């Protein structure tokens, strides 16, 4: 068995955050068309998502005075593109601490500061990728960032330990060794996501069913992972609109309240090879902080979406967030426990990165909002509390949302 681990383990830490519970609401959500290679650019995709998010809440482009995107990617929506598209010219507060991945959960924290400080009144967070189209041109995509990193270039890539499926197959095998996790367990996650995508009109895999037997019969890609354990590569994106409590109550849809936010980090950075606790994610640090801010326990969560680049990443986060004891994720996820109607913990009810679209977590937040409004395709009956868990290498983040009482 592995050495004991827990929130006090010294391999990472939680970021100290002020209490922003119920200081900001998500009032509008929109998704672009999610597709395989489409020839669209990331900014055109983002603008489609922004238009739909504004339609959702009944606000005009001129009402938006804050724009958050992913500062780490160079092709995200700019203020100039926003104005050129909508024919506006007002001042926009801009933040690069938004977008997808871990930041899809923490953008509301920065937005709450901007709202409180008078920097903005209506903030839109958007993220889009055209990685399916770019893959054909061999640029962009999830691997490029890592290949440029000097220690990886010197000490990892020469040995064929690259790209991400190789990292996470190595982590999965160790998790299997330490805890008895099996392909049946990973398959249960893939099957739950696929079933949800099959009912979601916007999911890339909406017409491709997958049973556990079919999963188990599929060949290994990077043993012990199959293609079905790995996320899609997509063109797509989404956006969500945030504002202060007073304004939130006057809009088209009922507000969804931000009640808790957390962020945790691994001291090993993005060197997965060197992470002290190899089979854990920094959700160990992030989730308890977010749940504390929200005043909830894991058992209060009605619907959960997790950043799921690989099935094993979802499994580890389920454990690390406290939904089951560490190492028991495998037996927790079997059968229909993760299905929206399974009576357990409804998980990635839109299909996730595995089967909905690889838009890096921004649609996970959209899905939680829809669940808490009662308008999801795979609606969880009576969902009141929803959580998104983000994971980006060295960072994990947690966003707790509550429906309007």
């Amino acid at each position: 068995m592995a050495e004991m681990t827990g929130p006090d383990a010294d391999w990472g830490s939680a970021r100290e955050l002020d209490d922003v519970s119920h200081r900001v609401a998500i009032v509008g959500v929109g998704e672009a068309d999610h597709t395989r290679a489409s020839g669209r650019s990331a900014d055109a995709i983002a603008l489609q998502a922004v238009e739909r998010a504004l339609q959702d809440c009944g606000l005009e482009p001129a009402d938006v005075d804050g724009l958050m995107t992913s500062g780490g990617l160079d092709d995200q929506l700019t203020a100039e593109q926003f104005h050129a598209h909508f024919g506006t010219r007002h001042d926009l507060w801009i933040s690069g601490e938004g977008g997808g991945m871990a930041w899809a959960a923490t953008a509301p924290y920065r937005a709450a500061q901007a709202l409180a400080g008078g920097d903005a009144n209506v903030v839109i967070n958007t993220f889009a990728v055209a990685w399916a189209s770019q893959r054909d041109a061999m640029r962009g995509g999830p691997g490029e960032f890592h290949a440029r990193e000097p220690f990886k270039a010197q000490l990892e890539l020469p040995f064929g330990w690259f790209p991400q499926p190789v990292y996470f197959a190595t982590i999965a095998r160790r998790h299997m060794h330490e805890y008895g996790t099996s392909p049946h367990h990973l398959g249960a996650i893939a099957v739950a996501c696929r079933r949800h995508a099959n009912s979601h009109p916007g999911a890339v895999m909406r017409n491709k069913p997958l049973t556990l037997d079919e999963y188990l019969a599929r060949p290994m890609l990077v043993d012990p992972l199959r293609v079905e354990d790995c996320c899609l590569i997509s063109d797509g994106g989404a956006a969500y609109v945030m504002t202060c409590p007073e304004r939130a109550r006057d809009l088209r849809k009922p507000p969804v309240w931000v009640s808790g936010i957390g962020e945790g980090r691994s001291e090993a950075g993005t060197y997965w090879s060197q992470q002290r606790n190899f089979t854990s994610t920094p959700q160990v640090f992030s989730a308890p902080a977010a749940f504390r801010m929200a005043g909830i326990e894991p058992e209060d969560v009605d619907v959960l979406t997790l950043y799921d680049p690989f099935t094993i990443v979802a499994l580890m986060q389920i454990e690390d967030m406290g939904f089951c004891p560490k190492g028991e994720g495998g037996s927790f996820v079997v059968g229909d426990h993760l299905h929206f109607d399974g009576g357990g913990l409804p998980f990635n009810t839109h299909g996730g990165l595995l089967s909905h679209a690889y838009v890096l977590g921004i649609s996970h937040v959209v899905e939680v909002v829809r669940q808490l409004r009662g308008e999801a395709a795979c609606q969880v009956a009576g969902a009141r509390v929803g959580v998104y868990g983000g994971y980006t290498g060295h960072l994990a983040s947690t966003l707790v949302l509550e429906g309007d009482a």
Partner: protein
Amino acid sequence: MSASPLPDPTLEITRPFFEGAARRELRIPRCRACGVLVWYPRPRCPACDADALAWNTLSGRGTVFSFAVVRRALWKPFADRVPYATGLVALEEDRDVRLVTTFVHCSPEELAIDQPVRAVFEPLRFGDGPEVVVPLFAPLA
């Protein structure tokens, strides 16, 4: 993304590692103040903050910490090597120090976590490019 993932043995941050490999030695930095092995290389010891790191020659023995078997070509430079096993070795001197490696001289099916392995020093080459000697790991027996 570069066409060849051959390491640059002259790059300062890892130069002693590749100089050692050329002499069939596995070299890792050790803190002269507190004695811990420091990996990946960095200017100061993460345990005691001393800036007194020296590259030590180790036994080259360790155990398989974990591995992946790449069965389908994911990445062009390694497309002609599939299936191959790549992963992490926990070093004998400190099991918390993990080296990324390729496992050689055995089929992937023979490999298991915790299995003893030893460094072998072999030239790495992609296509018609130059060679760099690197430590790979093979079953001990």
